C-alpha cells in the first residue's frame, strides 16, 4: 500500500472527496426536491418556496394519485407488460442463444443464422415501417403491441450466446454421449450454470419494459390503454391533470405541481425497490458485454 503524506497530495484527497460527494448529491437532489414538493401544501408548492424539506406537510397529493382509477389501470397494464414481456424475452433469448453458441459442425446453418440475427440488429427498418407492420397485424391498442415487436432483444441474445460459449464443452459432450437430448443439456447443464447472466438480462429487460413509454404512445390510440410511463407523460409533460381525475375544486386546496411530483415519485418507487439488485448484477452485465477479452 502506497502512503502519501505530502501536502499537495492530502489537499487533493480532501478536494477529491468533497467533489465526489458533491457530484453524488447532485444526482440525488432533484429527486429529493420533487419528493419534498410532493409532500407540500398548495401555497408553498405553487409559490416555489419548497427546497428540500416539505412545507405545510400533507399526504393528500398521494391520495389523489393513488386513488385515480386511470392511474391504477395504467399501473396494471405496466405490471402485465413487465411480467409477460420479460418472460417472453428471457425464453426467446435462451432458446436462440443455445443453438447459436454451437459450432457450425454441431449446428449446421449456424453461420448463416448468426448473420440473420446480427444484420437485424445493425439495420433498422425505422419507426414508420415498423409502425405500419404492427398496425397491419391488428395489434394497435393490444398488449401485444408492447411485447411482441421487441420480443427478441438481439444484443442480449449475443451476450447470452457468448456466455454459453464459456461453458466447458466436456460437460455437454459427456451428457450427449450418455443419450441426453439438447433440451436436457440446455435445461440441466446450461441454465443452472448461467443464473448470474440470466438474472442480469432479466433485470435489464424488466427495467426496459417498465421505463418504456414511446411504444405506448404510438401503438395505443386509446389513452385508456396507456402503460404507466405513457400515462405519466400525459400528466407531467402534457400537464393534463384532468387525467388524474383532479377537479377544479380540489385545485383550490392542492397544488398541481405537488400532484405531479407525487405522480413522478410513485412511478420511480419500483425502480428504487429493485435498485439494490440492479446494482449487484449490472456490473457483471456490463462486463458480459463491454470488456469481454
Amino acid at each position, binding site marked *: 500500500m502506497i502512503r502519501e503524506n505530502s501536502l499537495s497530495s492530502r489537499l487533493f484527497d480532501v478536494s477529491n472527496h468533497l467533489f*465526489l460527494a458533491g*457530484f453524488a448529491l447532485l444526482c440525488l437532489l432533484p429527486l429529493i426536491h420533487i419528493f419534498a414538493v410532493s409532500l407540500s401544501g398548495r401555497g408553498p408548492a405553487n409559490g416555489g418556496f419548497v427546497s428540500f424539506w416539505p412545507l405545510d406537510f400533507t399526504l393528500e397529493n398521494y391520495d389523489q394519485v393513488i386513488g385515480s382509477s386511470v392511474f391504477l389501470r395504467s399501473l396494471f397494464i405496466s405490471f402485465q407488460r413487465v411480467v409477460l414481456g420479460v418472460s417472453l424475452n428471457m425464453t426467446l433469448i435462451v432458446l436462440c442463444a443455445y443453438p447459436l453458441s454451437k459450432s457450425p459442425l454441431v449446428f449446421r446453418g449456424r453461420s448463416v443464422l448468426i448473420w440473420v440475427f446480427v444484420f437485424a440488429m445493425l439495420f433498422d*427498418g425505422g419507426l414508420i415501417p415498423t409502425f405500419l*407492420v404492427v398496425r397491419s397485424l391488428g395489434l394497435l391498442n393490444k398488449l401485444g403491441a408492447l411485447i411482441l415487436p421487441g*420480443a427478441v432483444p438481439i444484443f442480449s441474445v449475443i451476450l447470452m450466446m457468448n456466455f454459453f460459449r464459456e461453458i466447458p464443452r466436456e460437460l455437454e459432450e459427456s451428457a450427449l454421449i450418455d443419450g441426453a437430448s439438447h433440451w436436457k443439456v440446455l435445461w440441466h447443464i446450461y441454465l443452472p450454470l448461467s443464473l448470474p447472466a440470466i438474472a442480469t438480462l432479466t433485470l435489464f429487460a424488466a427495467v426496459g419494459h417498465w421505463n418504456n413509454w414511446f411504444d405506448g404512445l404510438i401503438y395505443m390510440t386509446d389513452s385508456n390503454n396507456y402503460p404507466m410511463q405513457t400515462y405519466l407523460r400525459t400528466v407531467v409533460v402534457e400537464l393534463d391533470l384532468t387525467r388524474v381525475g383532479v377537479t377544479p375544486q380540489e385545485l383550490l386546496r392542492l397544488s398541481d405541481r405537488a400532484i405531479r411530483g407525487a405522480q*413522478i415519485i410513485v412511478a420511480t418507487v419500483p425502480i428504487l425497490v429493485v435498485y439494490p439488485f440492479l446494482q449487484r448484477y449490472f456490473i457483471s452485465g456490463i462486463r458480459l458485454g*463491454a*470488456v469481454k477479452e
Partner: protein
Amino acid sequence: MLYRAGLVKGQEPLRAYLRRSWPLYAMILPGLLFILLFRYLPMYGVVIAFQDFSPARGFAASRWVGLDNFDFLFSLPEFNRILGNTLIIAVLKLALDQLGAIALALLINEARNLVFRRSIQTLIYLPHFLSWIVLGGILLDILSPFGIVNNLVRALGHEPQLFLGSNDWFRITVIGSSLWKGVGFSTIVYLAALTAISPTLQEAAAIDGAGRFRRIWHITLPGIRPTVVLLAALSLGDVLQAGFEQILTLYSPAVYRTGDIIDTYVYRVGLVSAQYSLAGAVGLFKSVIGFFLIVASYWLADRYAGYRIL
C-alpha cells in the same frame, strides 16, 4: 459423435444428424419468426420511401415515385436543420460523456475508502435507470420560471432563464441533463479497466520516486488506453443518436430551430401528420447511414481494440 470428434472424415449423413440435432432448429424457430416479422418485414417496408404510400393499398400496391420523396426531402430547409442539430447534439453528448466518465472514474479510483467509493457509485448510477419521462417531468418542474433552479438564479442576482424554451439554452440543457443522467453509469467500464491495472506497477513507480500525479499520467492513463480507444470506436456508431426520447419529452415548437432532430422530425411528419412516405424517406436516410456507421465502428473496434461482438 465420431464425426464431431474428428475420428471420421466428412459430414455425418443428414438423417442421423437431424435425428439428434432437430431440437436446435426447434429452439431457434420462434425467435427467428419474431425477427422476420418485426425486423425484416419493416426492412421490406422501407419501400414506402420510394412510393406515394397509402395505407389502404399497402406496401405492394402503392404507386412508385422513384426518388421523388428524396428530391423533395433534400430541398426542404428543415432537412439541413435536423441533420445539423442531430450531429451537433449527438457528438457533443458522446464526447462530454466519455471525457466526463474518464475523469470521474480516475477520481473515484483515487478515493481509497471502500465504503465511500461504494456509496458514491450507488448514487451516481441511479439516474441511468430512470426513464426520460420521470427525468423530463423533474426537469420541466425544476427548470420552470418559478422552479428551484430559477429561484437560485434570482437569488444570485441574475435574470431567470427559459432553459427549455429558448434557443440559446435548449441544447445546453439537453446535453447537460443527458450528461447528468448517464455519466455516472458510463464510469463502470472505466472503473473495471482501472481495477485490472496491477498495483505492483504503482508501487514500483512510487518506490522509484514518482509522485501521485506522475503515476496517474504514466501508469493509470496508459492502463486504460485500450478501453478509451474501444469506447471511442464504438461511439462512432451513435453519432446519429441524439437522444430521441429525451428531446421528444423536453422540446417544444419554440426550440425546433436548435432542438429538432431527425427522429423527432420523423415522428411528427410520419405519425402525427401521417405523411408516411416522406417520413419513411427520412427514416431510411438515417437507417442507411446509421448502418454504415455501426459497421465502421465495429470494424475500428476490432482493428484497434481487438473487440468482437461475435
